[in-house]
């Protein structure tokens, strides 16, 4: 029996049932993940390479990449800073309402993104609470690029918080206390002791936030203003193609988003693998 298990998995496992659970996992992944993606690429089959290229490099679509990627990058950076801060506060301090704050972190996941978008647009339009305060000062948020980044930041903040939080929990307060007792200042303790520990989680969380923002539609569409070349996001370009019954065109643009996202996720994974190996002195 144990020999059989060894033969099946190629390594010694304590728990049996790998074959069955692996089989179910692969089936599930195929049905839920791979099948739709294959469908997407199936749509592309109707296009020649030249047509494909023409669609994805059309001026307006390229402008939408710029808007989307730029805003997603800004949103991811904002979330990297504030997500880290939030995770830090949640892990290291005790205060009344901590559980509530912790639960609130997941709100952007629970809320339909369209609701978030409409709410943000209402708040930041010149007639809204925030917009009414900001616009006299010369900041226009709704219907500009800033609004897009804001909506992206809203929907993707949990990614950073929820990836960094458990790693911070693993790092007991004694570690930075020890550093400080050996004479390190706050900044040095953070940079040399805490940051290296949470760095992979922070990068992963920020990367996920970025990727999530690339595909966001519901939250943004209401606050973006959707002006050609200025505040049109790539997801809207896909939506427009679908409105025109141009499935192949929509898939072509979607494949670009997918490609960027996958490459980034893959890069983070590879980098993280190396990081972990280095951390454990060559074993991984």
């Amino acid at each position, binding site marked *: 029996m144990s020999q059989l298990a060894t033969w099946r998995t190629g390594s010694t496992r304590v728990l049996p049932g790998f074959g069955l659970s692996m089989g179910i996992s692969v089936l599930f992944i195929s049905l839920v993940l791979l099948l739709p993606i294959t469908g997407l690429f199936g749509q592309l089959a109707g296009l020649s390479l030249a047509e494909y290229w023409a669609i994805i490099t059309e001026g307006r679509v390229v402008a939408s990449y710029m808007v989307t990627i730029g805003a997603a990058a800004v949103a991811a950076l904002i979330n990297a800073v504030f997500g880290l801060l939030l995770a830090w506060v949640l892990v290291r301090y005790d205060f009344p309402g901590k559980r509530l704050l912790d639960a609130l972190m997941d709100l952007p996941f629970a809320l339909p993104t369209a609701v978030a978008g409409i709410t943000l647009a209402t708040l930041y339009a010149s007639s809204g609470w925030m917009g009414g305060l900001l616009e006299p000062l010369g900041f226009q948020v709704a219907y500009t690029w800033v609004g897009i980044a804001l909506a992206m930041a809203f929907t993707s903040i949990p990614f950073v918080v929820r990836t960094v939080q458990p790693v911070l929990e693993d790092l007991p307060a004694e570690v930075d206390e020890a550093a400080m007792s050996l004479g390190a200042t706050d900044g040095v303790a953070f940079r040399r002791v805490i940051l290296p520990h949470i760095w992979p989680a922070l990068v992963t969380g920020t990367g996920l936030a970025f990727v999530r923002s690339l595909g966001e539609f519901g939250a943004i*569409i209401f606050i973006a203003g*959707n002006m*050609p070349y200025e505040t049109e996001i790539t997801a809207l370009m896909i939506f427009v193609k*679908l409105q*025109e019954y141009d499935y192949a065109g929509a898939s072509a643009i979607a494949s670009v988003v997918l490609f960027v996202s996958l490459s980034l996720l893959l890069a983070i994974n590879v980098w993280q693998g190396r990081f972990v190996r280095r951390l454990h002195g060559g074993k991984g």
Partner: protein
Amino acid sequence: MALPTIFRRSLVAIALGVTVSGTAVAQERELLNSSYDIARELFAAINPEFQAKWQEEHGEEIAISQSHGGSSAQARAILQGLRADVVTFNQVTDVQVLADAGLVAEDWQDAFENNASPYYSTTAFLVRKGNPKGIESWDDLVQEDVEVVFPNPKTSGNGRYTYLAAWGFAENEFDGDEEQIEDFMRTFLANVAVFDTGGRGATTSFIEREIGDVLISFESEVNNIRSEYGSDDYEVIVPPVSILAEFPVAVVGENAERNGNSDLAQSYLEYLYTEETQRLLAGFNYRVHNETVVEEFADQFPETQLLEVNEVFGSWDEAMETHFEGGGLLDQLQRR
């Protein structure tokens, strides 16, 4: 009429985004009407009348379900298997897509009177109290300080009508001079403050967010907004030249046959042409064809010259191809 049945049906209906109207008794025939977004209230008013009439004439109780969404999205859903028996759309092209796929008869526009359009509308303006910018017609919309709100022609049939109406106006105004028309359109499009993806979104931008000086939408929608949000705060302007917006209907033959609803579907659409329904439609601010009703509601619908898409642009297909498809005139006019 057991309560759990209704409950279960409602759950299914909610899951499908369909509202079940009328009493739900097992075994009864059910007609599914797939329609555009803002017709929800309209058909909620028409359906019970038709059900009563059918009951009276045929002694059969029937149920009617409504499914609403963007007209193109609805057409896509039917292409992908939504079993609607009839469609009541706001875009000829969206029915044509179904005809091209063989779901609707090739000659669907001859199947009912007036190009299979039981009612029609046009595009009109909603301006703020006292009309501060003095907007009366399309050429007032290209002034420098005027901000315009209408949905994106790329994603909304409503927006396409607005674009075509403005183009039609310019074509008359500049006697067909291409360069001047395009300049006019470029300025017009540059004056857009927000491009929402649909009619209701544009309404929200104009009313709730207080963006822009003028909202352009269907005359029916603009009038309904005005009566809903206060006739003191807004004024409706029907420009002297505008476009004929047809609301085409068709039986989705294949589905109706499979559902055993062919007779029902046909009668349902015919019912839209009856005097009583035409009166109801006029009450919802749609223009109708029935002469008695037209006279009754004459005050409500100012006389205006209505351009026809087929006359100005050749056909809907041609208009779509030249203006709205990727790289078409709309894209060129918006290019920076």
